[in-house]
Structure formats: structure tokens, C-alpha cells
């Protein structure tokens, strides 16, 4: 927390104030080019404005000691239509006796300024001078010393901290308990049944299965999830002796996919059925990839299409072409924009998190299952907070809502 320092030191070093303020006035006039400058000397038009008063200052909280905020009471002459005040000049000095330095000037009707040019842990004294067409009037007092300090904790972020710690705690707990052999329960995702049915259907029809792991590289989590699902799909196709085709768009997922399919066939009863061309590297270019895949769909007529991973604008083209060949289609993506196209054209669609859940379920990896369970537990807490919060709000009790506010 920043320390607060307020106070006024009456009458100090008015000497150079006039000079500095004149510079500020010139700057202000230069900045507001929209207003035509009076041809008559300003002093002939109006008397100098009454001074601003009550300057107070404070350290800006929750920062690294980089700013001070100042506010004052407007000059009594500063009112709309009067045109006696053109603005205010803010000056600061290391000592009440000077030397004074112009910080900035602000327009009329402004009673607040944040000085962002301060050095940390340094004392400053401030004064504000009223500028008008009729002359300049320094404030009658100086405020200070003010000092900007660093805070050790941002006190507007408690709720985020609590949420983060809770969530990390849950995930770590479930990971640990999964690793120690206590396998947490995760329900079977209906999409997995749909995938198995689709492969079964392809087997019955004596046609192949087409699997796409999305169009992004391995650093996309959806691609990883897709590849985990591919591992299981390949095991099934190897078991049922059904051919599988996997077009891939990036080199690294390609190597991983190839390895997975090969391993699945080599560990099956008929390793000789492994076709080295079943996993193909196509191109990272979106439309080139689509053209190649739709080509495969139309030529080879696979009976089952499985799309699992990150898809973008091509989802529409893939789903449409696939639909027109009459194949069973199962899709899954966390790219929400693309889900509508899959939902209407596919027999089953894994929606968002279901993709990750399916891959966690299939892999049985304690770390994946752990984070899934952690997220589930936090969801229960969220739902509880929403219900409690809505009830409290309805009863006009706002404390809980305010605590969560981060801004």
C-alpha cells in the first residue's frame, strides 16, 4: 500500500511561478489551435482569474510507485460562459522553496491530474496556477511532500487470487490422487460410442475410416487431444482390420500420428495390414489441405469421417463434402465458431470441453483426468456462487458482488 501524505505549506517561492505559468499558458494556447486567439492583448479583456485552492495529493495505489494523483477546487471564476479561466498549470519542486518545474497544464473545468513523471520514493511539492486570458494567478499555498511508493500486493485482485489458488489446489489434489492409483470417476462421453459405431459401420461396409486431427500444429492443445483420440481409433481399426487414412497438415503432428497408427497395427493380430501411406503429410495451407481432403473423400469414399481438433473456416467445406458422400461423421472441436457447421452436418459432435474430456477419458492419463476433475469441482463452486449471489442481490445485499469486482 502506498503511504498517504497530504498537507499544505503556505506561501512559498512565488518568484518563478509567473514565468513557468506563462510558458504553460503559451503551451495551452498552442495546443488548442481550434480556438482563435484574441487579437487584443488579453489583459485588456478581463481581470486575472481568482486562484484555485485546496490542492490535495495522494500516491496512486497498486502500482510500482510511478504516479501521484492531484485534485483541487476550481477557481471561483472557472464556470461555463465566463471565459475567465483557460486552464491550470501544475508545477512541482523537490523543496517548498523551489526550484519549480512545470509538469503539465490542463484545460479549464478540470480539477484532477495524475503526474506520471515522478520518480519512486522521492518527495515532491506541488502547486497549481490558474491561467486566464486576463493573466495568471498562482495558488496561495504549496502541497507536499508527496511521495510515490511501490505496493507489494494489488488489493483489487483478491478475488482473482482466491479463484486461482482454489483452482490450482483442486487440480493438484486430483492429479496427486490419480497418480497414487485412486482413479477419479469420469463419465464416458457419448461421442466415444459414436466414434466406435462409425468405425463398426465402416467395417461392415468394407470401406475405410478418415481421421483428421485438426489443422493446427502440435502447440495447440486441441491437436494433442485429437492425436490422443487417434491413438484409440487406430487401435480399433487395427482390431477390426479396417483401413484408416489420416491426412495431417503439419510435420510434427504428422510424425506423431504416423507413429501412433504404426504402433496400433504392429500390436494387433495382423501387423502386415499396416499401410505406410495411411498417414499423409498434406500442407499447412488451409485451402490446399481442404482441397486434398475433399479429394480423398470423393475418391476413396470412406464410410466414416472423424474430425477431432482445431478447425476453422474449412469446417464448412469438410462437413458439406463429407455429408454429400453419405459417410457417418463424428466431429469435435473447441473452436466455438465452427461448431454450428459440424452440429448440423455430423451425426455426433463433441462440443468444446467434451473434446478434452474424451481425450482424458481415453488416455486415462492421471494429469489430464486430474485437471478435468479440478475444473468440475470449481464449476460446482461457480454454480453455488451464482445461486447465492443472485439470491443476495435480489435481497439487495451487495457485499459478495463487490468483493468479486476486480475493477
Amino acid at each position, binding site marked *: 500500500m502506498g503511504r498517504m501524505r497530504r498537507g499544505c505549506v503556505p506561501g512559498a517561492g512565488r518568484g518563478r511561478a509567473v514565468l513557468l505559468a506563462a510558458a504553460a499558458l503559451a503551451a495551452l494556447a498552442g495546443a488548442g489551435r481550434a480556438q482563435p486567439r484574441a487579437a487584443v492583448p488579453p489583459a485588456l479583456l478581463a481581470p486575472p482569474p481568482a486562484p484555485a485552492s485546496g490542492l490535495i495529493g495522494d500516491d496512486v495505489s*497498486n*502500482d*510500482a*510507485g510511478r504516479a501521484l494523483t492531484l485534485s483541487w477546487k476550481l477557481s471561483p471564476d472557472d464556470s461555463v460562459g465566463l471565459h475567465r479561466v483557460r486552464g491550470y498549470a501544475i508545477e512541482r519542486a523537490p523543496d517548498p522553496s523551489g526550484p519549480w518545474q512545470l509538469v503539465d497544464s490542463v484545460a479549464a473545468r478540470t480539477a484532477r491530474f495524475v503526474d506520471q513523471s515522478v520518480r*519512486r520514493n522521492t518527495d515532491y511539492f506541488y502547486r497549481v496556477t490558474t491561467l486566464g486570458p486576463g493573466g495568471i494567478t498562482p495558488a496561495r499555498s504549496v502541497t507536499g511532500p508527496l511521495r510515490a511508493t*511501490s*505496493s*507489494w*500486493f*494489488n488489493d483489487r*485482485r483478491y478475488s*482473482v*487470487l482466491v479463484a*486461482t489458488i482454489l*483452482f*490450482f489446489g483442486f*487440480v*493438484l489434489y486430483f*492429479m496427486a490422487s490419480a497418480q497414487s492409483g485412486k482413479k477419479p470417476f469420469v463419465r464416458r462421453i457419448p461421442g466415444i460410442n459414436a466414434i466406435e459405431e462409425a468405425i463398426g459401420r465402416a467395417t461392415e461396409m468394407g470401406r475405410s475410416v478418415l481421421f483428421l486431427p485438426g489443422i493446427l500444429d*502440435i*502447440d495447440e*492443445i486441441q491437436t*494433442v487431444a485429437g492425436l490422443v483420440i487417434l491413438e484409440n481409433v487406430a487401435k480399433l481399426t487395427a482390431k477390426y482390420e479396417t483401413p484408416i487414412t489420416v491426412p495431417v497438415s503439419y510435420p*510434427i503432428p504428422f*510424425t*506423431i500420428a504416423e507413429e501412433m497408427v504404426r504402433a496400433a497395427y504392429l500390436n494387433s493380430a495382423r501387423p502386415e495390414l499396416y499401410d505406410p501411406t495411411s498417414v499423409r503429410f498434406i500442407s499447412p495451407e488451409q*485451402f490446399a489441405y481442404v482441397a486434398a481432403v475433399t479429394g480423398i473423400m470423393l475418391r476413396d469414399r470412406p464410410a466414416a469421417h472423424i474430425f477431432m481438433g482445431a478447425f476453422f*473456416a474449412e469446417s*464448412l*467445406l469438410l*462437413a*458439406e463434402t463429407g*455429408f*454429400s458422400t453419405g459417410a457417418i461423421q463424428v466431429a469435435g472441436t*473447441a473452436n*466455438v465458431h465452427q461448431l*454450428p*457447421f459440424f*452440429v*448440423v*452436418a455430423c451425426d455426433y459432435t463433441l462440443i*468444446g*470441453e467434451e473434446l*478434452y474430456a474424451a481425450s482424458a477419458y481415453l488416455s486415462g492419463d492421471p*494429469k489430464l483426468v486430474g*485437471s*478435468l476433475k*479440478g*475444473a468440475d469441482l*470449481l*464449476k460446482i463452486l*461457480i454454480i453455488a456462487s451464482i445461486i447465492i449471489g443472485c439470491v443476495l442481490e435480489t435481497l439487495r445485499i451487495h457485499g459478495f458482488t463487490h468483493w468479486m469486482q476486480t475493477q
Partner: protein
Amino acid sequence: MKRELPLLTTALIGLFMILSFFVPHEWVSVPADFLQATAIILVAFGYVLGGANVLRVNLDAVSKRAPGWPYKVLLVVALLVTVIIGVLDGIPREGGFLNAGTRSKWIYDQVYSPMAATLFALLAFFIASAAFRAFRIRTAEAAFLAIAALIVMLGRVPIGDRMTAWLPHAFQLGTMQQWIMDFPQNAAKRAILIGAALGVMATGLRVILGVERSYLSGEE
């Protein structure tokens, strides 16, 4: 060394960045700021590397006379020409290679820009044919989707209001569209948003713990 050090680096930096969110003190915020400045520069190197990779892959395809290799020659030439002109344009202008009047700006405006814009305009056609051939309303779920889609699609453009101008205000397509967007779809989107946030945080934690290391795969 090959794996452990990068994993440790990621873990420490990740934790430090999280810390810097809660601690504004300069002992934390200045190093965090430096790390961000570093990340920006590294990402830029990453893009340059990406371009170099495209060059390598395509030169490879040309030298192996892979199918369609003449197109790859075109690609490589286009890439090199763009780079050379860009570098030459930038030198006298302190890096302002895309300033008005440069050759790079001409390439950007007349070659890059129209093609980028047109590639996605193709989707207007595909979306219509997909609507006709692959929009199946078989289940209650699909029916909800279809009805919402039709109301929103028509209600968001002037013709929707024109078509239903004879109805009371509350039943006009524009009003219904707005209501769907503000309430039912908003509730669903918020649930997805919250779920996705948990997913990202879980992934972040796994990366920091070093259990999510797919980015390290590849060259051993």
C-alpha cells in the same frame, strides 16, 4: 539438460508472470516487463523462422520434383522477391518499408491484399451450398439451432424488419433477434467462456508443472 532446463525455465517464468499480476512492486514488475519485451522479440524471430521454413520446405519440394513443383518455384520466387524489395525499401526509411509510395506497399496493396480478401469471400458461396446440402434438422437440438439461426440471420438485416413490419414490435424479427442474442445465446456463451477459462488455466498450470510438454516434441 536438453529437456530439464527448458522445463525448469518455463516453470519459473510462468510462475513469475503469475506473481507479477498480483505484485506491482518494481522488484517484480520490472523483470516481468523485461520478460514480455523478450517474448515480443522472440515471437518476431519466430515469424522470420516460419518464413525461412516455408522457403526450406518448398525448395526441398522443387529439388525433389514433387508433384506441382513448378508452382513451388513460383512460391519461392515470390517469397524472395518480397523479402529483397522489402529490405531495400526499409533501409533508407529507417524501417518504414510499407510507407506510402514504396514498392513493398504496392505489392501489399495490389497482390497480397486482394487475394487475402478474396480467399475468405469464397466462403459466402460455400456457406449457401452447405446450407442447402448439409443442414439437417432431425433432432430437437438441431431444430433449436435452426430456428435461432433463421431468426438471427433475417432479424439482423433490414429486410427482416421489412418482412415483419405488420407484426407488433415485440414479435418483429429484429426484436426477437436482439432478445435471442441478449438472453439465451448470451447465457450459453458465458458458460462456454467460463469453461474455456478453466481449460486455459488448467493448461497453464500443466505447462508450468512441466507435464504438458508437447511443445518440446520433435527434434531430439
